[in-house]
């Protein structure tokens, strides 16, 4: 099919599909009248069962912890795949890390940008860590905080420039941190089994509500997610940035 025919065909099919979609959605419960019961049960028991105030975190890391284990490994697999593909295509497949070009041409960035990067990076990093740690109490957690830590690492790139940044963000370290994050989650689930509990069952003390040590196992696996997300996104960014090398870089 060529281009106009295909879009016409699609539009016709979409128009024919539309009444079915409307009929189907019409029979959903009206917006704003969630019928339950799953969420209501969680809201009812979450605080007393786990001493946490953020139910979303409870669902993610405890009630439906296995989902998050799977999601963490999706991230793990994507990062591994990105690294394998990009590094392989650059002929660096056998090297343990992305090749570093010592005297790579510096991207033109103004002093103001560099300064802002230097100032903002540590603040962002601290904020990221704060968000990771307060998963049980306030909005946030390993996923969001991990991405903020990653943003801090990017700001460091703006602040320090390519060479210094590559000395800081080493592939080997990122791989290790990512593996550690995934391992914390998978092993954290396994350990309770040696005490006769189920996989991912909480056997730790639940702690005081509204503190960062509340929730028992939640605090542990959440940390694993934070590490894996921050390291994984940094790995992706690093490999993608290495792709932007231009022909002049090798000689410069």
């Amino acid at each position, binding site marked *: 099919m060529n281009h106009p025919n295909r879009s016409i065909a*699609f539009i016709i099919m979409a128009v024919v599909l539309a009444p079915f979609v409307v009929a189907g959605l019409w029979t959903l419960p009206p*917006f704003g009248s*969630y019928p339950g019961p799953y969420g209501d049960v969680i*809201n009812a028991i979450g605080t007393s069962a786990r001493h946490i105030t953020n139910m979303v975190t409870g669902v993610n890391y405890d009630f439906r912890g296995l989902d998050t284990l799977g999601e963490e490994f999706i*991230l793990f697999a994507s990062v591994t795949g990105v690294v394998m593909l990009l590094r392989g295509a650059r002929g660096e497949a056998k090297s343990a890390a992305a090749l570093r070009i010592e005297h790579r041409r510096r991207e033109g960035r103004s002093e103001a940008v560099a300064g802002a990067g230097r100032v903002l990076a540590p603040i962002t990093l601290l904020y990221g860590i704060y968000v990771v740690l307060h998963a049980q109490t306030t909005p946030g957690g390993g996923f969001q905080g991990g991405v903020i830590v990653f943003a801090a690492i990017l700001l460091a790139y703006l602040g320090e420039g390519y060479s210094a940044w590559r000395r800081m963000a080493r592939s080997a370290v990122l791989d290790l941190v990512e593996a550690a994050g995934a391992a914390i989650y998978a092993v954290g689930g396994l350990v309770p089994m040696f005490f006769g509990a189920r996989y991912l069952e909480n056997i730790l003390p639940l702690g005081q509500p509204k503190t960062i040590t509340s929730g028992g196992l939640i605090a542990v696996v959440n940390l694993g997610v934070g590490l894996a997300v921050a390291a994984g996104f940094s790995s992706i960014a690093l490999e993608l940035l290495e792709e932007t090398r231009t022909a002049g870089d090798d000689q410069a």
Partner: protein
Amino acid sequence: MSIFPYFVSAWLFLIGLYGVVTSRNYVHLIGCLTVVQAATYVLLLAVGYKTGAGAPIFADHPPGTPAVDPVVQALVLTDIVVGAAVTALLLSLVLQLQKHRGTIDPNDLQPTRD
């Protein structure tokens, strides 16, 4: 209003697919995929919404106050982060495509035929 959010979701799904069908650039196509993905998020959060209820976070208000469904939120939250990682994987495949075939326009690629 009672089913409007669902229709917005269906609309996003269909126009995202339309973008995939008609795209002339794989990078643009991946952008359209993110629209389809957004459609699923809107649908999930819409079905879990309760009029007048608060967020399922009992830091300020005590447990027992009406709150929207936390389950769909947890599902969407993880999926957003993971979706970004998958998008990165797609982008790196597009980079490979450019290296091997010299184009990222689906129309310019020779059919894989013998």
